[in-house]
């Protein structure tokens, strides 16, 4: 372990000895003010193309398909390269430079009015989602097939590791949190866990197939939280609904103003809402911190070489540290989402009252 860290540090310092003069040179060329907030937000947000590297004038990016539907002109499908990285428009479409839809595609109709078409473009996040989904399916199906072919032999290498990983989530998170009938929910919860975990990890890889801020995007976490919400409430038992609509509290709290039922109903909504915000905020914050620390290098360029060099070293050390923390967070957030989903499912399937009382009474003498 000690050796590993030393190696990492040496590599990082070596990289910076090579690369920092280049950056400094290119930045002194264009001494315009660096808008850090803008840059970070830009990186956190979605994009129509998958940027790989950009150096002031030259861009290297993978163009992605843009799919649009507008009531005025119907369906459109074209490459994002047509926008030339936001510098030009295509047909009636252009990227908004400011306003509410900043960076999004807008349509200008013949009268000059701007409107937002239905945008189903395969953006960077969408492409990353498809890639990670494909990767996840391939990995899990490989494990499943390998195990099916030889069910009585313990897996080796990657398959064995995945099996242990899956079973650790299954045995330590899902089973104790749901209790009875956990078998019904285990596949869903395992899928959710590995979906989030894969996307979190891919988000930490800064080069091409990764790097997208997928699980730090509210649309993604919204779908995940909604899925949990649906599962919890569609498979809830009679007791669960009774506890919501007619809870065990004094009657004046329920009639004539249904205070407690309203609180309970709001409670069922806030639980998945918290899931959605937690995952989104954690991953987004992680990306922001990494970006912010990296920005430290470029912000200090104007303060002279000595400051810049020392801040560069500091920035790299911090970034490496935060990346390790993020690795932990990638697991923890997937774990927390799965754990809480399992707990909510378990709460929606309470033991019948009579049994609870009986259990309490039998426990008393101890």
């Amino acid at each position: 372990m000690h050796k590993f860290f030393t190696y990492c540090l040496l590599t990082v310092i070596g990289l910076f000895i090579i690369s920092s003069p280049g950056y400094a040179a290119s930045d002194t060329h264009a001494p315009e003010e660096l808008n850090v907030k803008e840059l970070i937000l830009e990186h956190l947000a979605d994009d129509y193309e998958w940027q790989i590297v950009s150096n002031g004038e030259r861009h290297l990016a993978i163009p992605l398909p843009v799919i649009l539907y507008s009531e005025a002109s119907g369906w459109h499908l074209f490459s994002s390269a047509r926008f030339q990285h936001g510098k030009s428009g295509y047909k009636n479409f252009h990227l908004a430079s400011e306003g509410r839809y900043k960076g999004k595609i807008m349509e200008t109709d013949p009268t000059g009015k701007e409107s937002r078409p239905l945008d189903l473009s395969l953006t960077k996040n969408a492409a990353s989602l498809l890639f990670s989904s494909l990767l996840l399916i391939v990995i899990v199906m490989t494990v499943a097939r390998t195990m099916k072919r030889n069910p009585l032999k313990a897996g080796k290498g990657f398959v064995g590791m995945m099996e242990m990983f899956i079973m650790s989530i299954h045995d330590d998170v899902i089973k104790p949190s749901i209790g009875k009938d956990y078998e019904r929910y285990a596949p869903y919860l395992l899928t959710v866990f590995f979906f989030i975990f894969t996307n979190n990890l891919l988000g930490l890889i800064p080069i091409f197939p990764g790097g997208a801020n997928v699980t730090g995007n509210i649309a993604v976490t919204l779908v995940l939280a909604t899925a949990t919400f649906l599962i919890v409430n569609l498979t809830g038992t009679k007791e669960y609904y009774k506890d919501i609509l007619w809870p065990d509290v004094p009657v004046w709290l329920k009639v004539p103003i249904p205070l407690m039922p309203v609180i309970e109903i709001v409670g069922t909504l806030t639980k998945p809402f918290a899931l959605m915000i937690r995952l989104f905020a954690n991953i987004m914050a992680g990306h922001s911190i990494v970006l912010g620390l990296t920005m430290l290098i470029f912000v200090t360029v104007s303060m002279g070489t000595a400051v810049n060099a020392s801040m560069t070293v500091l920035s790299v050390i911090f970034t490496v540290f935060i990346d390790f923390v993020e690795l932990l967070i990638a697991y923890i957030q997937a774990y927390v989402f799965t754990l809480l989903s399992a707990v909510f499912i378990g709460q929606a399937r309470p033991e019948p009252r009579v049994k609870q009382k009986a259990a309490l009474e039998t426990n008393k003498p101890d």
Partner: protein
Amino acid sequence: MSLLTPEPGLLFWMLISFGTVLFVLMKYGFPIILKMVEKRRTYIEESLLSARKAHEELATVKQTSEELLARTHQEQATILKETSLLRDQMMEKARNDARKEADKMIEEARKQIETEKEKALLSIREEAAILSLNLTEKILREKLGTKEAQLALIDRLLDEIDLAKS
């Protein structure tokens, strides 16, 4: 603020990709993995159980075989003992029989000898009688050639008879 508003486009792609992942993994992925793990778990449990059972069975088999061996040894000993006893008895009996037979034969031989002896004695006596008669005849013919001698004899004989009568 745009970070907090879900994009419909991404929502659409997320629904598609997450839906596909859910469908595939919930149907063909995780249930199979969980089932296989469960299968292996029960298999290991059963194997352990049967191994323990086999172990126990082996122990009992060993015990019974030892018992059997011990019993066989015992039986062998008793059989040997019985056999030697029987042999002794048979020898004893044979000896007795032989002795009896011998005694009988000796007895018979003795009897035969006895009878033979008597026969021989009888024949000897007859011979002797005949010999004596012949001798007597010859002696008498010699002695009683004269008249006086014949008379003297008659007288003596008569005396003897008289003596025997009285």
